[in-house]
């Protein structure tokens, strides 16, 4: 497995970084993978308004672990990825839209021989707020983004997303209009994503009445909760003191915002961390279990498979 760490937020810089690693040259803002590594391309388009787009269509010969390390600056990164399974040629269920924040680390395992067709966009909060404008749902979405950015936001990739991604990958024969065509497709992808977010918000009766102050306090609670998985999580009384809320209010508003009751959320994040550690292939199953506070490995395996339908040993393979 090759592991690639990066923290570049400028796609042109990132492309140069990849080019150095793969020992290829950047030509017309694009690189082509050398045959010993895989095949396909990664290409960057920078719009005159500063928006950057990376379009890629590649297959690696071995597993690649992309590891984006966090930076203090807060930018939003969108990825629309369709993964094609080598055996069947069908779209993998992992194909998805992912919204993440550069304030957090992010891992992505690109399995050997899995073809990835992807479109990525990166932009700041201001750009996003400008994009959302003054529409009815804009405020709800902004609030949602503030809250939901630590667990990443996913949307499964449906046909309409796939069609737009394919149009971007195929590119245009008329280069004169390329920027215009790319820009419009990206806008449609983002429109689709945020429309679906706003529908989700409405479906979940997302309570936007929780005050900004309470939200900030809940974020402190969330950080405290996830600080150390090796020890017992803090009790509700302790969290309630930190939040300066009654236990009842804390439990209700935590669930409202993070979508799960406090300890279920803790457990889910704990297992996500386990999965990420296992995928990095740097730790044994036992090490991971211990790190996450399981003295009994079969309890760990049970908890893990409850969430992922897979045993830790299967992921570690």
């Amino acid at each position: 497995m090759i592991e690639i760490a990066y923290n570049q937020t400028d796609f042109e810089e990132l492309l140069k970084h990849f080019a150095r690693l793969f020992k290829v040259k950047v030509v017309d803002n694009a690189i082509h993978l050398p045959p010993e590594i895989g095949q396909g391309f990664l290409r960057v388009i920078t719009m005159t308004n500063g928006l950057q787009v990376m379009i890629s269509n590649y297959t690696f010969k071995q597993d690649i672990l992309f590891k984006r390390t966090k930076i203090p600056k807060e930018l939003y990164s969108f990825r629309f990825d369709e993964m094609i399974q080598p055996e069947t040629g069908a779209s993998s269920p992992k194909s998805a839209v992912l919204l993440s924040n550069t304030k957090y680390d992010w891992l992505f395992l690109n399995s050997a021989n899995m073809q990835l067709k992807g479109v990525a966009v990166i932009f700041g909060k201001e750009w996003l707020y400008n994009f959302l404008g003054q529409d009815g749902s804009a405020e709800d979405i902004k609030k949602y983004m503030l809250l939901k950015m630590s667990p990443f936001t996913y949307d499964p990739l449906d046909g309409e997303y796939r069609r737009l991604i394919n149009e971007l990958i195929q590119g245009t024969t008329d280069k004169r209009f390329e920027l215009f065509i790319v820009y419009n497709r990206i806008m449609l992808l983002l429109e689709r994503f945020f429309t679906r977010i706003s529908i989700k918000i409405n479906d979940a009766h997302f309570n936007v009445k929780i005050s900004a102050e309470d939200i900030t306090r809940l974020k402190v609670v969330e950080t405290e909760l996830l600080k150390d998985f090796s020890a017992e999580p803090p009790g509700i009384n302790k969290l309630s003191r930190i939040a300066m809320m009654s236990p009842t209010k804390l439990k209700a508003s935590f669930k409202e915002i993070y979508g799960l009751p406090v300890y279920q959320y803790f457990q889910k994040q704990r297992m996500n961390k386990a999965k990420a550690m296992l995928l990095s292939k740097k730790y044994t199953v036992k090490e991971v279990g211990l790190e996450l506070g399981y003295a009994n490995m079969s309890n760990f395996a049970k908890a893990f498979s409850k969430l992922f339908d897979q045993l830790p040993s299967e992921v570690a393979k």
Partner: protein
Amino acid sequence: MDIQYNSPDYVDLLNTIAKALGTRIVNNTLIIPPAFGKGYAWAENFANGMSFLVCDVTLNTTMDMIRESSARQFYILQFNEGFTETGEAAFSNDGQEANKYNMNQQIVLLTNSYISTRFIMPAGIQIKSIKIIFEKRHLLNFFGNELFDDLMSNYFSELVKNRHVEPVDAEYRSLIDELLMPKIEHPLRHVYIANRVMLLLERFAVKFMNKMQLKSNSNKLNDDEITRLMKVETLLVKDYTTAPPTIEKLSRISAMSPTKLKRDFKSMYGMPIYEYFQKNRMIHAKKLLTGGNYSIKETGIMVGYSNLGHFAAAFRKEFGMLPSEMISQELMIDFQSKEN
């Protein structure tokens, strides 16, 4: 009735029209008072200075809209369609008077603000129209000065020679349909409208410039021929549930020989007659399917396929995926990490 204006702002124009009709606009929307006809018009000004108007009206008095020339430079792109009371597409020959257009025509038209233009909205005809006001600066982010000037100079010199430079085809129509509603109820309404407006501009620019490149080997059509070809097109995409009209029938309707009809249709709509039919049939299918109200089977039947395997194959040929893939919503495997 005459309406004179030169505003680059369609909300402003709606106010002027409302006043003339003795009513007022509410939420940028004008409802035609029963004394004058029926229908609606709404307008939207974008933060970047673009302006946008949608209308679907039937007036009982002919309205003459006169856009006076303005010192401020901007462009107006419009998509017009007219229908008679029986719902048939309306066509009229509006003579050759310069800068005077009958809105009762299935055309895409680009005009500019420094020449005065007249638009006639004939009584008793249902006019569906979308108008976009933009300036050069709105497109310079996407293509350079040179391309912009190239597009405009080519277009306006073509327009002098041929008043029907660009017909409304089924692809435009499917975009227009997404905007032609009394009210857009969308959680991101501005984004939704702006994106479709930009797509209309994109399609217009790309299509026109492609046509200019192919022009050397295309033949010149006169106004009358163009109107007849538009009739053929309307008939062709009217009903997908049955087999398309035969070339013989279309040739009778257009009063052209089959050979001429086939050649001229291709030069005007960019593809052979039945390819055009098939493409738009699939666009229609996709719209039904993604609208979420019809199953694959129902959709297949609604676009004239009794054999669903044939439907799926035809669909894949057009969009690169099966109808089932288009609507599938696979679940995600959680694949994320947060390291503290």
